[in-house]
């Protein structure tokens, strides 16, 4: 390849433009927009009127500007809207064992999950998938491109899996919900407190068990150097003062001998 044939690297603005028009970016944007549309439909079905557009508007702006806080903002706005509407109407039923989620509840789950997955994957393509290295923050453009996921890596299988995963996770959550409904409250606790505790403790137990297993595996596969460092640290911490005093005297003696030698 001669020098003239070597393609020149694209400017940052040009690269950004190319990235926006990439099929993978376009597909994920469409997934997000579809999810937001579904969200609007679900909220409109609840009779929220024009208010149902608020989460969708926030989500669209976040999508346009590639805000990494987009999904949390959509979730928070959705929560606020639902809570406000329930209080305002005073007709929101107290859920119980015999209450069955409606199709619109399930579609709401699908919409939110779809938006969250699509938006975060889109961010990985257009912003960064790996957290930016603070040491390389000065060179902003190159750091961003190095931390970005290549859009060419996205294939049709990935999108199909995403679409398939949406109903799957929704169904799974319904299963967990029905399991929660089955458990009767203990110690005469209020139902909602009991169920909150159930969810919290289950999540914590799973988290702790997983972290323990992962930690054990990490220790089991530690290199000899890591193990030596650990042992050295364990010895140093309780005896650091004594070791420090001894070594201070040793250094003092060495320096004194050195000074004497230089003076002589």
């Amino acid at each position, binding site marked *: 390849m001669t020098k003239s044939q070597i393609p020149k690297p694209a400017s940052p603005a040009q690269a950004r433009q190319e990235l926006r028009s990439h099929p993978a970016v376009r597909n994920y944007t469409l997934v997000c927009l579809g999810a937001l549309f579904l969200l609007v439909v679900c909220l409109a079905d609840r009779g929220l009127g024009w208010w149902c557009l608020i989460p969708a508007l926030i989500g669209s702006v976040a999508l346009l500007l590639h805000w990494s*806080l987009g999904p949390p903002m959509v979730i928070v706005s959705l929560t606020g809207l639902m809570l406000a509407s329930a209080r305002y109407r005073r007709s929101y039923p*107290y859920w119980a064992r015999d209450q069955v989620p409606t199709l619109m509840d399930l579609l709401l789950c699908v919409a939110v999950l779809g938006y969250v997955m699509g938006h975060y994957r889109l961010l990985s393509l257009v912003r960064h998938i790996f957290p930016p290295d603070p040491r390389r923050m000065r060179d902003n453009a190159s750091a961003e491109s190095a931390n970005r*996921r290549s859009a060419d890596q996205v294939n049709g299988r990935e999108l199909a899996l995403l679409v398939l995963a949406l109903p799957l996770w929704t169904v799974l959550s319904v299963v967990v919900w029905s399991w929660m409904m089955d458990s009767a409250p203990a110690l005469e606790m209020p139902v909602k407190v009991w169920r909150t505790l159930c969810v919290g403790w289950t999540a914590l137990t799973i988290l702790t068990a997983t972290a323990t297993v992962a930690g054990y595996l990490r220790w089991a596969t530690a290199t000899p150097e890591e193990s030596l460092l650990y042992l050295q640290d364990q010895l*140093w911490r309780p005896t650091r003062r004594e070791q*420090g005093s001894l070594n201070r005297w040793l250094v003092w003696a060495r320096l004194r001998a050195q000074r004497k030698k230089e003076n002589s």
Partner: protein
Amino acid sequence: MLTSRAWWFLLTVLLILSAGLLVPSLPLLLVGLTLLLWFGCQWLLFLLRLPAVRGLRIEREVWDEKTAVATLWAGQTFEVRIRLVNDWLPSSHVAATDRVPFAVEHRDGLTTVQGTLSPRQPLEFSYRIRCGTAGLARFEGVRIQTADWQGFFYHAHFAHAVVVMRILPVLTQRAGQPASKKRQNLLMPPGIHRFHRPGSGSELLDLRDYLPGDPPKTIAWKVSARRDRLITKEFESEVPVRCTLFVDTSNSVRVPGMAGVGPRQINYGKALDRLVDLAAGILQASANIRDLTGLCLFDEQGVTNIRPNRGGAHLTECLRKLAESSALTLRLERVNPNHLLPLAYSFVQEVYPELLRPAVNAVPFWMTWLEGFSSYSRRLPLSLFEMLRRGKSERSVGNLFEILHRRKSELRTLCWWSSFWTLLLPLVFLLARVVFKARVPDGLLAFVLFFCPLFSLLMWGGTSAAFALDSLVGWRKRRRDRWRKQLAAILSARYGLAPGGLAALLEDDDAFSLLLQRFLSEHQIPYSLPLYGPEGRYLFAASEKVPVLADALVRAVGKGRDNELFVLLVDLLELDDCLEPLLRAVRVALGRHHQVVLICPWPPGLALPTDNPARRATATLALHGHTARSASRAPQAILWDQLTTRRFHLAYQRLRRTFTRLGVVVICAASDEPVPLILSRLERLRTPGRPRS
């Protein structure tokens, strides 16, 4: 492991879940559960796939234009091919970045590849490098970053696959190199040359009258018959010509400087690069004409010898030694390790992230806030008297804060002791008065009862204020302490000093600094050290090398025969006071009818010394032109450059005068002369009938 993106998301999911449970609201609960389940499963999946990243196999090959190679050559371009093989489950999204050694220059191709690793589909990538000067290229391995597609979970790992490849010096055919063809049609053993002195050769030199004791077979019978007296034949000598190169590898030639440019546009970063290049040129020229060439590498500590020999294996061995010596970096005792800490820590963060994990190498935050490390050997001069006399200087105030930071532990102990005594003293006085009926004056008792608690309170108050001051202004010191402790632990474990090495390295700055330099040097990380000591003395003159070189030269003379050429590639500028041992050794060599040539490396970027007034004027003009071009520089800097140049010129002239008196040729290594000059010297040795010097 969780990124900020994941933390924010988790927080909002918990919010929606709590709202769904506590309000309660079925749709919110379902949404929250869906998101939480999905998030948890993503996390589990990521954890399951992590061993794939940690157990990666790396296959690396370096190719020239035809085949895979094990040795690199300076100034040439090679292709590095890397293959990442995974024997576990398919991994999450992975970005692998190969760490390009400092000794080579990345030309083209990507050093980073992205994708998913599966047992069936390894990741492959390649890029091209161009080797710089001779030395070592150390490929550390590949940095692996892995994350899920959403960017919630992240793990960085460095897959170590250390490969150290030698970069051998450039071999070039130089103009003016003596021909390797025989001048006479007389086959001689390799490396043997005719010498125009009577000896046991086969070429007739002269005829003379027969003397008793001459072997009868040398009598020229026909000539004797013609002249009617016995005439005997004299033959030429056939002698080997041996050249020994003494290459200086001491600290003085390892000092990095402005880059000069050598053959094939190789940038010389230090004087040693130039010397190695010269030595390689002479070795190659001697090998071509099958002369015996030896190599002696020396520094302040000792010498490494390769006896004079010939042949390809010998040449390769010499080039390897030269490459290894070219990779040597500065080494200095008694240097403040804080100069090297940021560089070393940054490198460790990148290459050994597993050794900085809090689980194995922790620095609890309270340790740096409440204690600090004392570092005994780097004592700080705190001249309070000077502060009072001259007012506060920045350095004195800095030292005050530094001492405050280091002595927090002692300050706390002092507070406890003062509290103990302020409680004990009044108690003792009261007991003495009440129980033992001792006469304790009321005034003294009142003084003790009042002032002791006050003193204790003041001590605690002052200490708290000092701690608060340190916490406000000492964040850099706390960071430095954290770096130092973690690096000391790693060095201690790496160099076999554990378990007590950590505490020793925290106290002993000199030992820590030396180990840090060794660590960086082993990893081929270029670093800089202060060139001048606190008293303004140049730290890298390396005068200790002169006796080492003198001993090596005398030993070589002792083992030498006739016709030896000793080439000293050594930096002796500004070492006039220490030259006596070397001058004696040179006299011995010359007294044994050997030849000595001295090649002095010249700092790159400085105007060359020259005898010719016209050339000197040109060099001066060039220097002025250079300074005029850099008009933006401060006048002090320009003046400093001119003074430095002048100082080096004077030093070179003194050196030249000293050695020329003995009959030793002194050459400046910055010019293109040295290799042809040495080769012409060798040629003179080979020339029949050369006069003995």
